[in-house]
């Protein structure tokens, strides 16, 4: 065997500035230097849709995900732009707890199908955010965008052990819906897909039922399906200057339409949870390089204590092994590279072999994947002992444009305008 079965999960962290959106939902950010403690998250409230950056990135991670990737089927640039405008209007409404269309689920002409599907009637906004991204395949000659492809949107390399399924990878456009109520997230994607019929086609979609990252210091680090806290070093909303360095694309990056945007990498990582579950605690902790209870790096006391990679055990070997996950993924192993991770646990039923089809839908935002996700994942794919228990089965890469400023703006305007 020897197949490294791989699954590499986790990355690092990144944070976001108090971007546009976090307002109602949660965290109150102080001035540049001082980040104040956040207020408890108001899970039913609305997150502002308009702002310098898109919401759903540094917004404190909601509990539920519905992610979708589309292939664009229309050949018309104008139709595509019209669709983005329609979507933007619907997204602005739905994120504020309104129906997708102006007439709604029951207010229209009885002989016509309703312009909202109705399953979210009576539900609060639930912290819904909708975040759009454009995949490398959009930048071909169909829409005259070939010259607009950002250098940072370079195709990901093949990582050792990749077992990617094309039918659940890639995509011209993605939309990430996050909410604290799964029905609200699904409602949003369902209505966007419906609006898109004839112009786009759903390539794949993914539900996530539990957040695996915290993107604010007000949130505790959740656990992945292996039972571990991972991504402790995530970039967080409060790390204002770090976010400028590691998360948001800037004019000097060379792609002016992306200024204020960021880059998204998704990886669906199947976990062999059955074999993991019969692995001893000692081995599980050695693989992660953390203890399972507190989440502290081995040799440290507390979760947020900086790992000491030099500390040795009585046998003279490093307490955190050379191939332990926390060491390989840590920013200090990659010249300080950091990500903002925002992944979700998934269980897509079972696999027909008596096992749960479970794992992590990894989501990470960063200023340039070539200097963040790629080197980190290459190190993990090569050496991480966790690979024995995981397998990467899908991959996505998207340029996430800046935020929508106001009702006259739309998703991707900076790309199509110039």
């Amino acid at each position, binding site marked *: *065997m*020897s*197949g*490294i*079965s*791989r699954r590499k999960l986790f990355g690092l962290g990144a944070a976001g500035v108090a971007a546009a959106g976090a307002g109602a939902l949660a965290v109150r950010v102080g001035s540049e230097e001082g980040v104040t403690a956040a207020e408890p998250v108001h899970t039913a409230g609305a997150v502002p849709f308009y702002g310098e950056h898109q919401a759903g990135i540094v917004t404190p991670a909601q509990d539920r995900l519905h992610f979708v990737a589309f292939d664009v089927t229309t050949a018309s640039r104008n139709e595509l732009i019209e669709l983005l405008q329609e979507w933007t209007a619907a997204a602005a409404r739905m994120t504020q707890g309104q129906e997708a269309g102006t007439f709604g689920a029951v207010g229209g002409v009885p002989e016509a199908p309703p312009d909202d599907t109705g399953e979210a009637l009576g539900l609060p906004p639930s912290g819904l955010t909708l975040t759009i991204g454009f995949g490398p395949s959009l930048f071909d000659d169909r829409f005259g965008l070939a010259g607009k492809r950002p250098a940072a949107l370079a195709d990901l*390399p*093949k990582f*050792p*052990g*990749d*077992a990617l399924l094309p039918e659940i990878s890639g995509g011209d456009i993605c939309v990430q819906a996050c909410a604290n109520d799964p029905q609200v997230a699904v409602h949003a994607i369902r209505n966007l897909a419906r609006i898109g019929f004839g112009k786009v086609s759903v390539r794949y979609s993914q539900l996530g039922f539990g957040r695996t990252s915290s993107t604010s210091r007000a949130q505790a680090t959740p656990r992945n399906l292996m039972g571990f806290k991972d991504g402790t070093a995530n970039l967080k909303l409060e790390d204002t200057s770090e976010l400028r360095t590691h998360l948001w694309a800037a004019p000097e990056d060379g792609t002016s339409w992306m200024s204020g945007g960021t880059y998204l990498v998704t990886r669906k990582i199947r976990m*062999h949870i*059955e*074999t993991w579950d*019969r*692995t*001893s605690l*000692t*081995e599980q902790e*050695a*693989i992660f390089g953390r203890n399972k209870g507190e989440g502290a790096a081995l040799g440290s006391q507390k979760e947020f204590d900086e790992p000491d990679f030099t500390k040795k*055990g*009585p*046998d003279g*070997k490093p307490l955190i*092994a*050379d*191939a*332990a996950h926390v060491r390989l993924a840590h920013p200090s192993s990659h010249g300080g590279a950091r990500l903002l991770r925002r992944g979700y646990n998934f269980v897509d039923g079972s696999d*027909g*072999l*008596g*096992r749960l089809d479970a794992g992590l839908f990894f989501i990470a935002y960063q200023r340039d994947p070539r200097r963040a996700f790629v080197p980190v994942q290459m190190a993990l794919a*090569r*050496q991480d*002992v966790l690979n*024995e228990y995981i397998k990467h089965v899908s991959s996505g890469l998207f340029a996430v444009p800046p935020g929508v400023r106001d009702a006259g703006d739309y998703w991707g305007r900076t790309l199509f305008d110039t």
Partner: protein
Amino acid sequence: MRSPIIIGALALAALTACGSADPAPSAAPAGGGDLPAKVTVAANDTSCQVATAELAAGTSTFSITNGGSKVTEFYVYAPGDRVMGEIENIVPGLTRELVVELPPGTYETACKPGMIGKGIRGPLKVTGEHKPLTDDAQMAEATAGYQRYVKSQTDTLLVKTQEFVDAVKAGDIEKAKSLYPVSRTYWERIEPVAEIFGDLDPKIDGREEVIEEGMEFTGYHRLERDLWKDNDVSKSGPIADQLMSDVKLIVERANAEKLSPLQLGNGAKELLDEVATGKITGEEDRYSHTDLWDFAANLDGSKAAVQALRPVLETRAPDLVKTLDEKFAGAEAALEAHRSGDGWKLHTDLSKDDLKVLSDAINALAEPVSKIAAVVAQ
């Protein structure tokens, strides 16, 4: 492939557990005194002549010579077909030894020409006083017993890999295809020890997807691709030579390795994990679809590691031993349904339902197997 770091961590724990840093390598008979003479067993396709039907209690060595035309196996069973010791894959013309510790009681010997069925049985009576091994000695014997297993498997691995490599180099595609799963059997049985050598394992057994840019795809699976997918081995000679030299190197290193009882317990579990994640899904042998051969070999290897620990487990956790016997038998029976001639059906010939039955049997077995390490570490 498994990283050596874990092994290191476990080895440390084992040391603490045993209280002895240097398990005596010699497999001294439990009763002390002189080594009893070897009991010869003349096996062929229709008979199984064991030189004696009575033995003194303690450690005995059976020397089995296969004079038949089929590959055979030799077992010593306690009542209820509880395996006290076994040695497999005794190819025609070969003599192999089985060392087994037997308390007083009644047993059965069995040869299994063709490696199937209940075999040709004979009675065996063991009398006299038996001083069981002390705890430390049981631990040391587990290590030594597994070392003997590694030795027997690697001897055959060298022979079978050479035959496979020769066929590849001779351009005999059909012959090479028939030898591929056979030579892998001996490899897959001892994977826990092979995987200690993280540098060689990927070269010998790396699957195509683990190969990085700038690294050459070599080893068994490269030749598998050449044979089944490309149907062309005209340029495979250097790969074949490389495989042989890598296998020689790893055999040399494997035989110098002493696995602690804790490593054996974990190794037994890891072999079943291999089955669960690689063989049941057909990912291991994606071109040849001979995954069931590897499945059987991993199961054999897991059982061998457990058998080496048997005296320790019988002392400390007799109920676990009972469960293990039951679940090993269950997994073997599930696999047995897919035998085809001297080998196994192709993965592609199994239905999803067939695979689910196998998957369930492995999960049922792996649970008790995963408890062994903690028992050994007590």
